[in-house]
């Protein structure tokens, strides 16, 4: 006779063997709650996922059909993910007794309801979240959801039809090919898979296998559709949320299979995965690479003094743009375009006065789009009449979330499972150095940024030529070397080696025989943790011992460290003598205001405290060093030559919407774009100050 305590605890053991579907279900259920509310913990990173209609039409004008398609797809894939959770749970509950020696479970209708209800609630939460976050979509969204439910019912019918076909032709070649690997695994460890009386594989496992085939088919169909999405605008209506749902569905299938196989032998699934990961890490092609262009040219980036000397006797402007995801990109582009807009009205010639930009992370993307707008023939910017519709601003604000998610769910997932296939190519034949080496989410992001024809072809060397010919301001994209923690500058100008007082590397000096696309350089500078992978140069093949580059924000998120050194070098030999240097800092989120939130305590807090402190110090330390460097530079050159002006995204726009943490993913919702618009309107004092520094006149009437 077992005690009540023992019965209760042995029932709880099901929680362990069911951990994968339970975790996937809870993750999906919690996803909208941690992403959507104003102060949601993962809001900045995940809120954009639920804005499913805006992704297809960044201008906010998704057509009726696009909204219907978007909601139908999210609904059907959310229901398929729910079905996956339910099926995997059902199998473990039904055969847990035999496979793991657990207490038998009473197979009641109530249990069947429970197993279906929770996954269904998770699907409802996801679709509901999309309804809340996507604006102006009620009727079309409802229609799409109904359509999605209909397609799901159809897919379930398809499963039954396939099942009948398979059992009717059990000896057909297709059935053998599909079922044989499974039957082979079952023959190795039949407990829980087969009926002990007949020795036959239980039909529910084969039935579940058919559902897995449908899931894989859906995964493949979405790949085929998404692959060509740029060519057919309607395909842009396939939301990123679908990819995330598909990814969770595939993970649920894969990891449940691992736990079902190995839990019987008390081998932890994590150990199995870690062992596999260690084994396949011997393949060098499993690493991430960025593309480079071989070149015979030997020119180095333009020296700082040469660039600054163009403005001798006149006002020069230098810009440091901070990091911070798409918010930083959009804010940098908006501030630069906005200053140019003011400058046209005030006749201060900002485009000519601007000599160099040092950018980090998201700021690099914004700087890239702005500098791309320069006409290389005249060295001037086109008139910027309306900032909101300015192409560089729109490009910086456009979502890249979809491309990153696609890269993660398709190439990166496949290469993670089978890295040895990554270098394989047939034309020309190669085992290691094939074209797919650079196919990952980083390259997907980079491709998404080639939003103009010129960005598809512009390289560091071509922009270097423009800078040398005074046709385009110089640019320095800052990245960090993983192995040494050094800064690496990728740009059209740099700090000469002799002048360097900090461990700074220049890409062209380290890799003189290759050139990089501007988009590649910007994305290396913007390698936001986990969103983009750390990558090394693809130059002489996978066996070359090159360093990995990641986000420049690890070293200096403000972009000032490089710019201060650059200015110091330019001014130190006396060749560059501008009348005034306006040092513009573009900060995409409020700095300072160190709120003491507290709340954490106990041994768990103590365990992670060093990491928490290190991350906290990274922010405060970088800010104080940045301010100090700028101040010391000003003091070194008399205190009047260098004038700082800061455009900092305000802490608070208004009380009605409360504080909203800036987005960190590569997607802006319409509300985020509205906040950027409003924030620029609040910058009037700084805008006036900057225009005054450019022409020493009262510009109160020309800055609107």
């Amino acid at each position, binding site marked *: 006779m077992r005690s009540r305590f023992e019965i209760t605890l042995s029932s709880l053991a099901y929680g362990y063997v069911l951990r994968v579907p339970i975790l996937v279900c809870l993750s999906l259920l919690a996803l909208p709650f941690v992403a959507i509310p104003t102060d949601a913990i993962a809001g900045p990173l995940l809120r954009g996922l639920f804005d499913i209609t805006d992704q297809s039409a960044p201008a906010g004008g998704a057509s009726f059909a696009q909204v219907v398609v978007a909601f139908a797809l999210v609904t059907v894939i959310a229901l398929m993910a729910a079905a996956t959770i339910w099926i995997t749970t059902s199998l473990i509950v039904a055969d847990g007794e035999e496979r793991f020696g657990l207490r038998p479970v009473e197979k*009641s209708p*109530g*249990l069947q309801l429970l197993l279906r209800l929770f996954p269904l609630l998770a699907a409802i939460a996801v679709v509901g979240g999309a309804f809340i976050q996507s604006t102006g979509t009620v009727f079309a969204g409802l229609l799409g959801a109904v359509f999605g439910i209909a397609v799901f019912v159809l897919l379930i019918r398809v499963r039954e039809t396939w099942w009948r076909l398979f059992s009717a032709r059990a000896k057909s070649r297709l059935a053998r090919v599909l079922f044989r690997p499974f039957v082979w695994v079952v023959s190795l460890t039949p407990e829980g898979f087969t009926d002990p009386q007949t020795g036959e594989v239980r*039909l529910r496992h084969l*039935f579940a296998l058919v559902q897995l085939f449908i899931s894989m088919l859906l995964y493949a169909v979405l790949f085929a559709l998404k692959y060509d999405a740029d060519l057919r605008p309607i395909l842009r209506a396939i939301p990123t949320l679908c990819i995330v749902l598909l990814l969770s569905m595939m993970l649920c299938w894969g990891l449940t299979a691992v736990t079902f196989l190995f839990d019987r032998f008390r081998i932890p699934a994590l150990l199995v995965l870690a062992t596999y990961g260690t084994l396949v890490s011997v393949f060098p092609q499993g690493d991430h690479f960025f593309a480079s262009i071989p070149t015979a040219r030997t020119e180095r980036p333009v020296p700082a003094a040469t660039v600054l000397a163009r403005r001798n006797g006149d006002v020069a402007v230098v810009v440091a743009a901070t990091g911070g995801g798409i918010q930083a990109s959009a804010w940098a582009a908006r501030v630069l375009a906005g200053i140019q807009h003011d400058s046209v009205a005030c006749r201060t010639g900002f485009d000519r006065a601007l000599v160099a930009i040092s950018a980090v992370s998201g700021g690099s993307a914004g700087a890239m789009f702005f500098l791309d707008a320069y006409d290389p023939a005249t060295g001037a910017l086109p008139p910027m009449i309306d900032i909101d519709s300015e192409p560089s601003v729109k490009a910086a604000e456009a979502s890249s979330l979809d491309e990153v998610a696609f890269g993660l769910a398709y190439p990166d997932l496949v290469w993670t499972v089978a890295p040895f296939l990554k270098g394989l190519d047939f034309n020309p034949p190669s085992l290691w150095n094939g074209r797919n080496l650079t196919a990952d989410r980083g390259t997907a992001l980079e491709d998404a940024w080639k939003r103009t024809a010129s960005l598809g072809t512009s390289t560091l060397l071509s922009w270097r030529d423009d800078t040398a010919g005074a046709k385009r301001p110089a640019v320095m994209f800052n990245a960090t070397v993983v192995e040494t923690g050094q800064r690496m500058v990728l740009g059209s100008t740099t700090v000469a080696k002799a002048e360097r007082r900090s461990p700074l590397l220049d890409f062209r000096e380290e890799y003189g025989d290759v050139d990089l696309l501007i988009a590649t350089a910007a994305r290396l500078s913007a390698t936001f943790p986990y969103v983009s992978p750390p990558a090394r140069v693809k130059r002489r093949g996978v066996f070359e011992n090159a360093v990995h580059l990641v986000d420049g924000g690890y070293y200096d998120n403000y972009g000032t460290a490089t710019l201060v050194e650059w200015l110091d070098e330019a001014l130190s030999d006396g060749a560059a003598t501008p009348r005034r240097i306006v040092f513009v800092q573009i900060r995409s989120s409020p700095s300072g205001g160190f709120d003491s939130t507290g709340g954490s305590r106990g041994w768990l807090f103590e365990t992670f405290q060093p990491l928490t402190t290190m991350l906290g110090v990274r922010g405060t330390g970088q800010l104080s060093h940045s301010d100090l460097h700028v101040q010391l530079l000003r003091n070194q050159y008399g205190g009047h030559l260098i004038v700082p002006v800061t455009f900092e995204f305000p802490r*608070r726009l208004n009380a009605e919407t*409360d504080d909203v943490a800036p987005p960190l993913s590569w997607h802006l919702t319409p509300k985020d774009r509205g906040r950027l618009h409003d924030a620029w309107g*609040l910058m009037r*004092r700084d805008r006036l100050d900057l225009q005054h520094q450019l022409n020493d006149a009262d510009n109160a009437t020309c800055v609107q």
Partner: protein
Amino acid sequence: MRLAFNRLSIATFWVGLVAAGLGLWTAAPARLRPARPLPEGVHSPMLALELLRERDRVHVPEFVDPPQQAVFGAEAIGTRIRPTREREHLLRTVRRDRYFIAAYDAFLTLAGTLAIRTPFGIPLIVAANAAAYYDVQENRLLNGVLTDAATAVPREPSLKKWAFVFGAFLLMAPALVPRRGAIFWRTLGLAGAAFALVGGVEGLLAIVYANDQLLESAAGRLTVAFVFAAIFFGTCRVLAEGLLPALDRLAATRWLGWLSRWPPSEPT
């Protein structure tokens, strides 16, 4: 007798549900993030006002905007921060609070009625009504502070209110620990009782030691205790025989029955 108890228990749940809804509705306008730290280090602007000390009264405009800004509320071009309307939001919460007071008073009174045969029943009803009385007094003074018409801060009635609320939850805890019943249902009650006990003791200590931060943390635990208690009362009949039989009954209904059969997990 048992039937009457069950009916009263379910009525308590419904009143609790209404109280929860009204609580959310009442608190919604006051969910503000003040620009500056609040007195005594609390996080909720409303609680900061409730527990305001006389010496801190001069600092009210620092975390609540002056009334003229609420009236004009114009966008100030050229400044970093637009004027906010926090005072207006807080006043709205104070006005709504009367409905919430009635609802939580009814919930605790019904809980007291459920425990009327125990030594805790009548004290619980008395504590609930005393808390409601002082809450009304507190709101009168809060209104005055927010409109600059008050002669005193609401701290005294507020502390009395909180003392009775914490006391009421302590007295309710035994009612959440039944001797019989299915394990899942009893676990719900035990969890509610544990939160009520910890929150109640913590809250009373906070009042004794005049520690406002501790009081805020104890109030948070009472919210959890309230949720568990309401679910416990509401499920006394449904979960009487356990979770699976309850689910079986749910699976037998027309609305959810289909979900226990479709989609089929085995070939038909």
